[in-house]
Every structure is written in C-alpha cells, then in structure tokens.
C-alpha cells in the first residue's frame, strides 16, 4: 500500500504443528493510527501479535520502520519500540507495581528519561502511584490491566500492541481503559489493538481488519466496518 508504513506485514503464516493459525495475511499500520484486528476465537489475532513480537516462528515478512524483524529476538524487538500488552496481562504477581514498571526499562540506560516516564505514567494512572508498593497480584483486574498498559509505556513503545485489553473487565473499566488508550494515541503512540469486543474496538480505532480462520475477511475504515451488514450481524450482535 504505502512505503511509509510504521509496521508492514506481508503474507504472514503462523502454524503450530499441523494447525495453521494465520494463513497469509498482509496489512499495514501507519504512524499515529489506531488499527484494530477483530474476530472470533481462533481467528489468528493473537498469533499475529505474537509473531510481531517474535514470540512464535512464522513465514512471511514483518517490517518495522523498514527493518525486518524476522531474525530478531523478542527482547531486541521491544527495544526497537514495539511494546506488547499480552493476553491475560502478564503481571508479575509477586513483584511490586514499581518493580513491574522498572522491568519494562530493563534495557534502558537513560536514567533522567526514565524518571520523566515514571512521572508521565503516574499522571496517566494515579491509581498505580497510590499502589506502587503493592504486589502486582493483589491489584484488581482493572488495575492490573492499567499496570500492563503502563509497563508498555515505560518501555517507550512507539507502537503498542494490545491483546484483548477488555478481557474479564466490567464495562465501566473497559470504557476507562479505552479512554486511556485514546489519550495515549493522541500523544503520539501508534496502537494495534486485538479485540473480541468489536463494538468498543471499532469505536476507538481508525481502521479495522476482520479476521476469520486465519485470513482477512474484511477491511476498511471503522465507519465502513460499523456500517457493514456482515460485521453487524456477526460481531455487533445484529
């Protein structure tokens, strides 16, 4: 589509043994955008994110700012500026909130910048500041999700990959998380959002792709997708 894409994916195949989870998808994410991948369970959404972060082997091409990510190890990809908020949050339960956040700066050496990022993260999530000495596992589900997003911010992600941030959260908390995501996007972070909650995701994002059994079934701006009768029937509950 465009050579200036922040993230460009071409012919991505991911398989686990004989099971093909992703069957040749291609799409681009441009700087400043919120792009969402929606689809049912097993559509290949999470596998796509895992491939981008270097967590699963794949064929095809994934490039970030023109650099090929294929041969890179997961920790190097994070250092490039791709931060993933994993499915199920991946909070370190026996470590404090502060330690959780510090881990995201593991490879960073720029101390004053890290201090500034802490301030920024705490201004976005004042709750985390209150609980900075509490163990991650004792936080509520919503707070854990906020911590997971905060960690991604601390690793200086230019591109944030979110794997079902709404999972297991009350609607009021989902709205809160999505409000924060919008704020983060407006301050310059590009977001690739994987969601089952298609309604919320399409309202937040600029563009969307509908995944069905490993291939892209539909794509377009979110306005188009929201108006599409097929999307309405299958994902928005009629």
């Amino acid at each position, binding site marked *: 589509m465009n050579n200036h894409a922040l993230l460009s994916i071409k012919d991505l195949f991911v398989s686990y043994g004989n099971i093909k989870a992703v069957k040749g998808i291609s799409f681009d994410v441009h700087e400043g955008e919120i792009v969402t991948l929606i689809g049912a369970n097993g559509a290949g959404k999470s596998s796509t994110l895992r491939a981008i972060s270097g967590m699963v082997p794949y064929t095809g091409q994934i490039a970030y700012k023109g650099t090929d990510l294929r041969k890179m190890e997961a920790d190097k990809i*994070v250092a490039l500026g791709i931060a993933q908020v994993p499915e199920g949050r*991946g909070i*370190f339960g026996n470590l*404090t909130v502060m330690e959780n956040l*510090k*881990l995201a700066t593991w490879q960073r050496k720029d101390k004053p910048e890290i201090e500034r990022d802490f301030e920024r993260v705490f201004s976005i999530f004042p709750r985390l500041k209150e609980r900075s000495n509490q163990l991650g596992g004792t936080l509520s589900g919503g707070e854990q999700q906020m911590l997971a997003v905060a960690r991604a911010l601390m690793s200086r992600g230019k591109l944030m990959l979110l794997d079902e941030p709404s999972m297991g959260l009350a609607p009021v908390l989902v709205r809160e998380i999505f409000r924060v995501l919008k704020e983060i996007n407006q301050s310059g972070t590009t977001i690739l959002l994987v969601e089952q909650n298609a309604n919320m995701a399409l309202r937040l994002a600029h563009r969307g792709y509908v995944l069905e059994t490993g291939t892209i079934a539909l794509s377009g701006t979110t306005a188009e997708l929201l108006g599409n009768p097929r999307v309405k029937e299958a994902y928005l509950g009629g």
Partner: protein
Amino acid sequence: MADKPLTSQPEKPPTLERLRAGWEKIASNRKALPIALVVGFLLSFAIPQFELVNPYVQLILMYIGINIILTISLNLVNGYMGEFSVGHAGFMAVGAYISALLTTRVFPLGSGAWLFPLAVIAGGVGAGLVGLVVAVPSFKTRGDYLAIVTLALNMIVKSVIENIEAIGGPRGIPGIDKLTTLPWTFFWTVLAVWVIRNFVYSNFGRGVLSIREDEIASDLMSVNTRQVKLLAFTISSFFAGIAGALFAHVLQFISPRVFDIIKSTDVLIMVYLGGIGSIAGSILGATIYTVLLEVLRPLGMWRMVFMPLVLVLLMIFRPRGIMGLREFRWFIPYRDLFASRLWRQKKEVPDASA
C-alpha cells in the same frame, strides 16, 4: 486509633513482650548486620585459637557454612528464577576435584595453606564453566527439562570421575590436607551471601525474578531472558564449586560416591525447608537441617525416618518453607526496605483509605 489499647494482646506474658520488642529493635537496626559480621569474623578466628568449642562443634560450624553456600546458590536458580535444577552435587564435585588435585598434586609441598584460596577459586571457576556449558543447550527448553538435564549431568560427572584412573577412579583422592578453616569458611559464606544478595536486588536480578513470575511477559518487557538465565546458572554453579572445594578440604578424602544424587537431594531439601526466594531462608534452612541431622545422630537408622517426616509436616503446614518469598530486613537494601514496610502496613490495615 492510637490511644485505644489493642484488646487482643494484654494477656501475653511481659517477658515475651520484652523479647519481641528487643528482637524488633535488633531487626530494624541497619548497623546490626555489619556488627554481626565483624563479631562473627573475630569469633571465627578466636574459636579455633582458644578452643572455645570442641573440634566436633567446629566441624559442624564449617559444614553449616558450606551448606549455606550450597543452599543459597541453588536458591538463585530454583527459588529466585523458578527453574528446577537437581544436580547441584555435580558442580560441587567439579569444584572439589579441581581444588583437591591442585593442593595434592600441583602445588609444591607445604605451600598449600597459602595457595588454598587459589585452589578454591579454581574449583569455583571450573564448576562455573561446566554450568555454562550445561546451561547453553538446556535453557533452550523450559521447565522440567532442566531438571532432567541437571540430573543427567550429576550422573555423568560421577561416572566420568569413576572412570578416570589418573584421579583415583572410584577410590577417590585420599590424604587431602585439612586446609578449610573456620575463618575461610566464614569468608566464603559471607561472600556468597553478599554476591547473591546484590545480584538478586540488581536490575539483572529483577530480570531473574520476572522469569519466575512469567517468562513470556518477561520477554515482552525487553528482558533478555536467555542472557539472564545463563548468568544466574553460571553464578549458581560457581558457588557450588566453591562449596565443593571447601568441602573436600574439610573431609580430607573425596570419592565420586560423596557427590551422588543423595547429596543433591540434601541441598534441595535445605532450599525448600528454608524457603524459596529468600536469603534468610537459605541460611536458616541450611543451619537447621545441618544441626538437626547431627542432633538426631543418636537415633541411628531412625534419623532417616524422622527427617523426612519433619519435611512432610513442613510442607503441609508451611508449603513455601520457613521464609518462602519473604526476606529478613537486614538483607533488604535500604531503597527497597521502605517499600516493603509500606506494603506490610497496608496489608495489616486494609481499609485505611476508606
């Protein structure tokens, strides 16, 4: 809140109350640890010099020190990193043999006492290298596989030594000088505790903890998990080698049979008895286990019935060990201490904000 007397505690005897207050004072005193170290070091010289305790007790003290080194080094991998290594005696054997060969065959006669530190370091480095060689392939897999690889390593080391006639084969190395002294044991024990404590509380150490908590998330947090695992495992086997070297020069006779899987199991027991992920727990676990085994010696055969029973009971009533995932205040760095104290207060008064 403050002027209201706590209603649940007035029946307690005042002596117990006083003891507790005294303990609290010692535990919260940051100067207590350096003082204890200096006193301990002086004592380690004074005890053999003036025969303050009999040689048998001195021997036990040295075993305690060696076992603390073993326990704390295994705790780094099994407790802090959450992997399951079961072949610690294998690394111990490497350290013991390298150092014993150096002091009995290589070093000139009579210089043993002076060159002993070198022999110990050589033993540690040798074991560390073997650890690195084992870690590179085995950490490509996760979880149980490391247990199998380390178990196999323990067996391999034992049979290799048994089959090399030049180093005594199954007969082992007799006539090693008793070079391990109480001050040396004290020094190496403190060094092991100090190094591992500082490692665990460093940025790298936080990476070690994150691997235990959630390895995938740890990768996604930019932690180079491979590098962290290799380093932690190498440090762990280095200190196992140090302990092996000290052990050889207390026992004065080593054979492959000393370093079999039972020895590895002993270390595992001390780790899980004291509690995973805890410096204080490692020290307690090693001390209690060593002393208990000696105290129970008169029971003879029944000792091996009693000890496992203690462990079964412990696992039922304290499944994480004595200090599992908790730490004694002396070992927590000052910057982290405040955090843990705040956390404790919050836990005791959950609705303070409401």
